[in-house]
């Protein structure tokens, strides 16, 4: 509980100080999603303050949606660190050099398919053409920050070792042999409600908002080389744009 800081000499109400320290710990990533908070009693003892004060602090955090009480079990963190990135760098989220925390890429599915209703339309492929698929989850500490479904048609990426996506970023995997043929990325940003499976994988609640970004890798002749469906946990992901007057 060393993340809680109380200064009784200050004029700031103590419940606010407690709520603020917990908020900061969550935002800094010291407290993670599903971490258990000390009981109200423990906080009272440690800081010799009244139970009402601690209750007020926890109530405020519950109202803000940062923590929740589970009857008979304790109080848990529901919020997590926000990820903010410039909008044109969203695809670099799993790049280690950008981050202090350790990034883990976890592949949950590798497949070679010959049809997919939605993806084949984005890829302009017809049923029967082979396509590599990789579903992976990118985690920072224990928090999933992105789920990706990566579709790479065999005709554009023959012999690609898709299992490398566990160790490397997508562009590291594509680098060299394939990157010269990618001209630009075409992205559409939208919001969708999480299905129960998506929620489970992203560690959010079913029906929570997902920031859904569809990325097409476009080649020089304007052909679609690949398609990535990106699922970001909506409440914890922010994209930033600076728009200057012309």
């Amino acid at each position, binding site marked *: 509980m060393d993340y809680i800081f109380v200064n009784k000499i200050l004029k700031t109400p103590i419940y606010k100080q407690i709520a603020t320290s917990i908020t900061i710990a969550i935002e800094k990533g010291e407290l993670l999603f599903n971490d258990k908070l000390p009981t109200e009693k423990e906080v009272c003892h440690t800081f010799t303050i009244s139970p009402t004060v601690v209750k007020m602090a926890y109530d405020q955090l519950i109202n803000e949606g940062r923590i929740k009480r589970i009857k008979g079990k304790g109080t848990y963190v529901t919020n997590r660190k926000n990820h903010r990135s410039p909008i044109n760098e969203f695809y670099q989220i799993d790049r280690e050099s950008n981050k202090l925390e350790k990034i883990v890429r976890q592949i949950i599915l590798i497949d070679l398919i010959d049809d997919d209703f939605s993806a084949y*339309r984005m890829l302009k492929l017809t049923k029967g053409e082979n396509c590599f698929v990789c579903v992976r989850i990118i985690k920072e500490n224990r928090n999933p920050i992105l789920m990706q479904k990566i579709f790479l048609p065999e005709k554009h990426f023959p012999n690609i070792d898709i299992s490398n996506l566990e160790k490397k970023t997508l562009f590291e995997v594509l680098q060299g042999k394939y990157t010269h043929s990618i001209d630009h990325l075409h992205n559409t940003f939208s919001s969708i409600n999480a299905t129960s499976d998506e929620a489970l994988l992203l560690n959010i609640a079913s029906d929570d908002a997902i*920031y859904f970004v569809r990325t097409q890798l476009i080649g020089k002749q304007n052909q679609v080389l690949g398609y990535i469906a990106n699922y970001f946990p909506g409440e914890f992901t922010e994209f930033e*744009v600076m728009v200057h007057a012309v």
Partner: protein
Amino acid sequence: MQSNLMNFITIDRRSTIAYNEQIKESLKALIVDQTFYYKTELPSYIRLAEFLNVDIKYIKTAYEQLIQERYIRKIDAERYEVAYFELTNYFFDRNVAIYDAIIALGLTPSIECVEKKVIKLSIEQQTYMGFVPNEKAKFFYLNRLYMGNHQPIMILENYLPMSVFPGIDQNFIGNEPLNAYLDEHYHLKAHLSHRITKAANLSSVLAKHLNERKNAASIRSTNRVYDKDKRLIDFGQSHAISSYYFQGLISKEDIANYYTSKI
């Protein structure tokens, strides 16, 4: 629905995927690529079941799931239509007023003023928004609904400092485009707009204004507008209907930078 449209819906009897799932996905794909466009009537349970030669229960389940995911909706007891459409804002990363972006979509824009008043904000609120906190400061609060062809597209709340825009509460009617008004009456233009977007669930109040269900996923955009002296002149927060999306290109140069800046 014309009978030839039904030919697009297919199932694979050898597949291990359940029929209802196949029918749902097949319809979804057709709706998303607008083969079945907005307001197209779907075949009835019975007709589609006969056509695909499957039990009616699969069609029912598929339709129910599509209603839940809001791709289709009920017109009456037996008829269903496509509810899905996509609305692209091509100007998200450019300095274009929402009003003009709606015109560019080929829709007739209009603005409905939900609320306007002069308010005070707590020091915390002012700090969060980015204003220099001042206990006495008053703000002109505007809450407006932007419509295209009389359908809601976006709801936008603005907080304008009264110190920058004296008298605005008396003279601004509420349904006129804001940027043009500020330019004309105060000679102030947006020099820089800092936008932060995220996906958020709609509150019941916002959902009601936007004609959506509570909790529908929406793009929330927080905008801080600065004038040429880097002074914050407008804090705004918008929520769009769930069909709204925007596009962004990442150029070859950006991708190249990704490699060259790599350690």
